[in-house]
Each structure stands twice: as C-alpha cells, then as structure tokens.
C-alpha cells in the first residue's frame, strides 16, 4: 500500500492498517459485529507484514494471549465490541497490574446484554472508570473521524509502551463502518523487546510478569506506583478539540461520533446566531478537566451529548464542580442522533438557559 495518497477506507480497516504500520506484531481476537473488518483485515495483511494473527477461541482467551505476548515483549493488540470487552475485564485488570503495554479497540455497540449491533457510546463508564476489579485505569482515546482513528491507533502503541499500560481506543459502529478519506502513516518497525519482558533469561536474572502481591503493603505500593503513572498521563496525555469555544455561551461537550454529528448541528445553530461551541474530549482518560473548565469559562450552560443514557456527563460535572449548570441529552440503544434533533436540543437548552 502506498503511504501518502488519500484513500477511502472503512474505519475498521483503516484502524487495522494503521496498527500494522505502527509495527503491531501480533493480533489476537474473536469476531463480533460491528468490528469484524478488523480481524478480517488483520488475518489477510498482518502475516504478510511478518506479524502473527490468531483467532482466539473467545475474548477471554484473546485478552490472555495478549497478556502473554505483551509480557514476552511484543507489540500486540486485540479488538472487540461491547459484550466481548466485558469478557476481557478480568484480563485487562491483570494487564494493568502487571504493567503490560497493549492496545485494545472497542467498537461499541448498543447494550446492555446482547443488545444490538448499532452504534452506541454506552461503554464509557466501563472504559474510563475501570470495568474490571481493583484500582487501575486504561488510557482511553476516542477518535471522531477515520483519519483520527488512524492517527490515534498509530500513536497508541507507543503510548502503551511509554506507560506500560493498556490503551483503549473507544470507537463505535458508526466510526467502524463508515468510509472516509484517510492518509496513512509510514511503516514503523517495532522495537526490540524491553528489558522487563520474558524472553528467556539467558545469562541474566529471571524476569517475572505478575500481578499477585499477597502482602497488603506491597500491593498498596503497586497501586501507588501505577497511579503515579496515571498522574503523569494527566499531565502529558490530555487531548481534546475545541470548536468555536471562544466566547461560547452554550458549550456542547461530546466525543467521538456524537461530536462530529454535533458539529453539523452547531454550524447550523451558529448560522442562526446561537453562540454555541463544542468541546470534544479525545482522551477520555485522562479526562481534559482543566481545558474543559477553561472552555466553559463564559458558558451559561453546558450541554453534554452522548449516545448513552448519560455517562461522560459525570466527568463533565466533576470537571466543572457546579460552576456552570450541566444538562444532558442522549440517544441510546443504537439510535444515532441526527443533526436536526441536536439542533432542536440546542434551541431548547439555549432558550431555557438560566
């Protein structure tokens, strides 16, 4: 594949190609709609790039294969969608505690339960608050365009390695299924295995990948150690986009697909003279608290839009600490809000502002 020409790609395929170009050495996953194009693409292209593709017997097996391969020093990823990600929660908790880098993609579908295969954003809490047990966090990034999905996927492997922590890319069926033009990044070679990885000790000391700490004080130190990394992330890895936030009196907070749809509605509302802007968190953890506070400085009201019953809105409220009223509008279950209905909501909120 050529490197520089823009081409039309499905989000899922673009993510897979970006991972291969980022030097991903192994993919372990299990099929689930709406992200099947990722394993399908990987099955076809990753081996050609010298990597390992393996369809695991389940998501549980997949995330534990990721654990093994990451622990052995490989650049490794998996992908799934909501129910499959739920099955990975124990494994993710292990990976975070054992400090293994890996990339996990969740193309969210409607839930709970078997739900449906339509786009949703209802796995926000699971992704950012820690769906698994224990004190840990994923670095969670939410792209809104196929190009951004490519760029974020590409960057995520190095982020995972920098922090020795899993990175989750939180997309949804919309982003995965849509085609958009993308320019692909150059092919990168994976680094050699780091000095903590189990690669056969040779003449050195045995290396151990582990998450068991039976003594409370040792385990507590482990927790504090990983949270110190999270504090660093909060300094260095916060990402967001501001769109007409300067002087915005009505601030919309939205991420991923919802944010891009909101843009269309915001353009229409601004054309009508409503002073509305958009704040789009790209890193959902670490959440861009300070930036949001600044963007909301002149806002009379903040409207959080999600394809859920209201999840990120908690983080918006935690950021703003009661300084501005925060209201919520959501569609869920696979219903994608239209620009028209968002526009209507903008009107409603603007007219009812305090």
């Amino acid at each position, binding site marked *: 594949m050529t490197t520089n020409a823009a081409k039309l790609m499905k989000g899922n395929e673009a993510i897979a190609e970006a991972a291969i170009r980022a030097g991903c050495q192994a993919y372990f996953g299990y099929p689930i709609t709406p992200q099947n194009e990722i394993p399908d693409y990987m099955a076809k292209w990753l081996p050609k790039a010298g990597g390992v593709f393996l369809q695991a*017997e389940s998501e549980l097996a997949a995330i534990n*294969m990721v654990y*093994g391969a990451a622990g*052995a020093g490989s650049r490794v990823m998996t992908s799934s969608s909501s129910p499959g990600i739920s099955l990975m929660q124990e494994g993710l908790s292990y990976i975070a505690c054992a400090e293994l880098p890996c990339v996990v993609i969740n193309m969210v579908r409607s839930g709970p339960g078997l739900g449906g295969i339509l786009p949703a954003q209802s796995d926000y809490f699971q992704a950012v608050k820690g769906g698994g047990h224990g004190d840990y966090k994923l670095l969670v990034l939410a792209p809104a365009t196929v190009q951004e999905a490519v760029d974020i996927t590409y960057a995520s492997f190095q982020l995972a390695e920098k922090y020795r922590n899993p990175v989750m890319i939180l997309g949804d069926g919309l982003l995965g299924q849509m085609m958009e033009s993308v320019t692909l990044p150059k092919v990168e070679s994976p680094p050699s295995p780091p000095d903590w990885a189990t690669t056969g000790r040779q003449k050195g000391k045995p290396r151990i990948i582990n998450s068991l700490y039976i003594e409370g004080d040792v385990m507590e130190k482990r927790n504090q150690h990983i949270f110190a990394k999270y504090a660093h992330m909060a300094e260095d890895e916060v990402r967001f986009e501001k769109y007409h936030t300067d002087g915005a009196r009505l601030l919309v907070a939205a991420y991923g697909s919802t944010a891009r749809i909101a843009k269309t509605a915001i353009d229409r509302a601004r054309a009508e003279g409503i002073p509305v802007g958009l704040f789009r968190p790209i890193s959902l953890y670490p959440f861009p608290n300070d930036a949001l506070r600044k963007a909301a400085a002149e806002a009379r009201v903040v409207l959080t839009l999600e394809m859920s019953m209201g999840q990120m809105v908690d983080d918006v409220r935690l950021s703003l600490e009661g300084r501005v009223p925060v209201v919520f509008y959501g569609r869920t279950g696979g219903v994608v809000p239209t620009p028209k209905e968002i526009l209507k909501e903008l009107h409603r909120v603007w007219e009812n502002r305090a």
Partner: protein
Amino acid sequence: MRQVTAKPKALTNAPFHYCPGCTHGIIHRLLAETLDEFGLTENAIGIASVGCSVFAYDYFNCDMQQAAHGRAPAVATGIKRVRPQNFVFTYQGDGDLGSIGIGETIHAANRGENITIIFVNNAVYGMTGGQMAPTTLLGQKSSTTPTGRSIGEHGYPLPVSELLQALPGAAYVARTTVTSPSQIRITKRALAQAFQAQIQGRGLGLVEILSTCPVNWHMDPVEALTFINEEMVAQFPLGVFKDFDEEVARDGK
C-alpha cells in the same frame, strides 16, 4: 563421600510454601531437573497458574509469567506464537486446567500449540481450602460436597487425559504419579517426552500427574500417597494416552 543429590539449578533458593508432604514439591523438582537436563532453563518461559502453585514464579529459575485462573494455555499460546524460539511450559492444577480453564486447554491442544503442560491433579481445590474439583472422586468428601461427590448432583470425575486423546493436535498425553521412587522415574520420562513434543514441533504435550493434598484430604502425607495408589488410580488409570512417537513409547524409553 560425594554428594549424590542436589537441588536442580532450574530452581531458585526460595523455600516452597506448600503444606507438609504436598507432592507439588516433588513435581517442581522433577520439572526443574528436566529443564536442567534439556539445558532449557535459560531459554524457557514458564507460566504459573492460579492454585497452590501460583508462586511457582518464585521457584523456577527461568523467566515466568503468572496467568489468570484457567488461562495459562492462552497465555502460553500468546507467548509461543510471538516467540517460537523459546521453550514454553505451564504448570496448572485441576481446578485451573480442568474446571475454569478446560476451554483454553482443549483449544490449545486442538490448535496443536507447541507448548508443554504440567497438569497436577490432586482431586481438590487446594488453595481455596478443599472444594470439589472436576477430578474429585465419586464419594469423595470436600467442602462443597460435604456428603461426598455423587453422580446425580455433581457428575463424573473429569478424565482430562482421555478427553485430549481425541484431539489430533495433542502430541503427547500421559498420566503418572509420584507416589514412589519408581513412579517418580516414570514421571520424569513422561516429562522428557512432553518436552520432546515441543522441541520437535509436534504439538502439545501434557503430563497429568496425580498429586496429593494431605491437608484438604484430611490425611497424613503417607496415607495420602496410599490414597492415590488405591483410590485415585482406579478412577484415573496411569499410562501414555498419546505419543507422537509410538516407537519410543513402546520401548518404554
């Protein structure tokens, strides 16, 4: 005088935390001796599972990963696929491998993963205090079968080696025990052949070793060995169930 026994080099100096008389310790030693004899300690990546042997990562003098309960074969697969040049083994109990992890075990075997599984069958959950394992014998009492395991309520002791026999990807499957010096020798031969399966790229090797849990069987360690010889072996017959190299098996070499 010369020293005729010694701790294998593939073990660290950490003393085992196992209960008095628990044969996990003997099995550790045999595995370590085999690693030494094959010269694999520096190359091996071992996987400790969740069970009494969870601290195995402190005992084996090679690189180790600790795996989630039941998932050791998946972890081993992940490692072996990205590092085919390494020797990869798992060490798992019957709860780990036979109950929560039977799916991962069967799929690793069915894929013919070139890994070696040391499967310690002690008919009970040791670490959690003596609950029923899938391999608990009929009539055997445990904390979750207080009146003894019965077919109607709890089903049959799970015959793991017999199950794996049906899978072409399983290259070597044997069931042994360590209840006497001669059984110990047979176990060591089985380990060596399971190692060979991996080294020669023939597929998965698994040695099921009948082991004691004196504490949870409420027996003294010597009685526990007798229990294996008299009761367990009747349910779980010893022998080689599968050998990629039938010749070698027939020689008993």
